[in-house]
């Protein structure tokens, strides 16, 4: 699905990712944890195609194509999805029109005609149920005036609409109360399938109680310094990151 090899990236001359390696196979759920400033969100942004970052080296293969060679739109259409840590408000663009443009972009990529209005609305209804997204929110401007929880639910709703091959969740648990966390996690779990992979970026083990990962990686100073099973997350929760940092330096 995804093969990252020695990826180096920087922003404004400062190096953030310093040779990152990661392989995700179809159907797997990987979690990336790490202290603040270790490069977690940079990784998400670089993979999604944010142009503020410079790629200084390395390769990223996404289902046999060079991911770094595609722009953000092409990556999304090829099946990559990023759930934003801070979903963007777009006043004046209704959520539903926004998604229709997105769905039709993907369909165009697949050589399909634009979706019919009726089919689209049916699809919206189904997918919104998954994350208990209020009908009112569908017609409001994208994320405008949404609560923190509503924004994150909207991210998962969008993910469900676009049915990506690889979904990156960038600190989706931040700003969520327990109920919202449950709803969002259930939405994600309902989408788990043998041919869909997830990369879950989080600070806290808590999210991983709900979305149980196959692998946990620890990112420190732009590199993955340790990988393990889901029990590694529990160990981090208990011991913090310092012991790993020290072992890495040593």
């Amino acid at each position: 699905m995804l093969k990252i090899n020695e990826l180096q990236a920087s922003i404004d001359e400062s190096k953030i990712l310093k040779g990152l390696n990661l392989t995700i196979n179809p159907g797997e759920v990987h979690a990336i944890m790490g202290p603040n400033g270790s490069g977690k969100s940079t990784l998400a942004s670089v993979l999604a195609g944010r142009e503020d970052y410079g790629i200084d080296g390395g390769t990223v293969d996404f289902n046999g194509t060079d991911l770094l060679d595609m722009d953000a739109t092409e990556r999304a259409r090829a099946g990559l999805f990023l759930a934003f840590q801070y979903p963007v408000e777009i006043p004046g663009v209704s959520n539903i029109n926004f998604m229709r443009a997105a769905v039709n972009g993907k369909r165009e990529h697949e050589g399909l005609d634009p979706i019919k209005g009726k089919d689209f609305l049916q699809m919206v209804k189904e997918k919104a149920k998954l994350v208990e997204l209020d009908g009112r929110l569908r017609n409001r401007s994208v994320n405008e005036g949404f609560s923190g929880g509503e924004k994150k639910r909207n991210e998962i709703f969008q993910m469900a609409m676009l049915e990506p091959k690889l979904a990156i969740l960038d600190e989706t648990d931040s700003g969520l109360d327990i109920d919202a966390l449950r709803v969002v996690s259930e939405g994600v779990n309902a989408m788990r399938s043998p041919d869909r992979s997830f990369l879950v970026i989080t600070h806290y083990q808590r999210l991983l109680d709900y979305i149980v990962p196959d692998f946990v990686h620890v990112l420190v100073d732009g590199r993955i310094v340790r990988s393990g099973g889901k029990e590694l997350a529990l160990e981090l929760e208990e011991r913090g990151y310092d012991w790993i940092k020290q072992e890495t330096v040593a």
Partner: protein
Amino acid sequence: MMDLAKPQVMDRATQSVQHAATQERGVAFVDALDGIMGSARATYDEVLASLPVPHRRVERWKYTPVASWWNEVKSAEPMTAAEAGCEPNPIPGFDAYRLVFVNGSFDAAASDLPVHPGVICMPLSQAPVESLQSIDQHQPEQAEWFAALNGKFASEGMYLRVEKNTILDRPILIHHHSTGGGSVSFLRHDLVIEANSQVQCVQWSTASDDAVGAVNVVTRASIGENTRVSLDKVQDEAGQIKHVAFEDIRQDRGSRADVHTVTIRGQWVRNDLAFRINGEGAHAELNGIFLPLDGEFVDNHTTVDHRVAHCTSSENYKGILYGKSTGVFNGKVFVRPDAQQTNAYQQNANILASDQATMNAKPELEIYADDVKCSHGCTIGQFDNEALFYARSRGVGLEAAKAMLVHAFIGEVLQGLAVPEVRLEVEHRLAEKHQWEIWSDHPDNES
């Protein structure tokens, strides 16, 4: 107490100096027109000579280059809409009364004049001269050279009289079409709408791809007590047309006037819109959008003159400037000493879609009353990159994402257009001009 009959500081001043070389060009231009126009009114000669021909040192024309006006002028070929290959109704299927003008001449066969109790509507050339609104010192012809030029040469336009308590059943569409090379079209619309009436007008300007020349329009509207008048103005002129337009709107007590100015296309456009609010409880609404592409110039000057107490005005102009285009916005709001309890709002927001585009924006509020609420805001910015990235990360193409943001940006002004058919056609034409596919992509549009 201020004597309103006397020109005040806030009246359009004519103190600006004349610029000798420009003045000469203007005079030569008038002479050339004199030679080819069928009619001319000598009564305007004196005011024409006294006014400065616009140049950069006249404050109101500082950002508005007029040099291209002095190109050679030719007499207009008399032509019907059919001969010009122009669809009389620019909005397919739009159910409206219609006055069609081609190169400044009325085309009776293409028109469909209102037949309605209480309404007199005819081409200006057929109207009795003595019934026209009297010339007074506040009208644009007394202050602006281009308007005085219109006063001298305009012989055609719409003459409209609406008796009190009349609700016109359909909008009146005035369609002007320019075609061919080098002529200047003058139109003058004279509207008097009496009390308790309702009228919707649409002014639509088009031009053929090969059109070269100029259009000069003056619209005077006198709006009676508790009367509601809207004017949706759409400028969609191909070719190389210079378009200057003056609207002189006078409002009586409790009236409401809406003017929406949409510039879809135009090589050189100057709109000069003035509201004089003479009666308490009146509301003026003026909104506009302009989206010039590379090489286009669009200028909107507005004046709202609050002369009496308890009135409101609301103004919202939005511009998106592409390529090497230039925009101008100047919004003047006067609140005279007697205009207490005025509530005036002005907003002008602009997006520079290219780093080579230029926008000159200037709010001008002159407030002489102390118990008023006046607010204004003016911004010049760029596309929201975060929003663009967000949309792209969902698989929306960059251009489609920009179109989406544009639609959102100008949406509130589009929604405010008085006539829904006009809004739909404007959206359609904007999408066509800018090659936006996403534009009409709305689930509600499908059955």
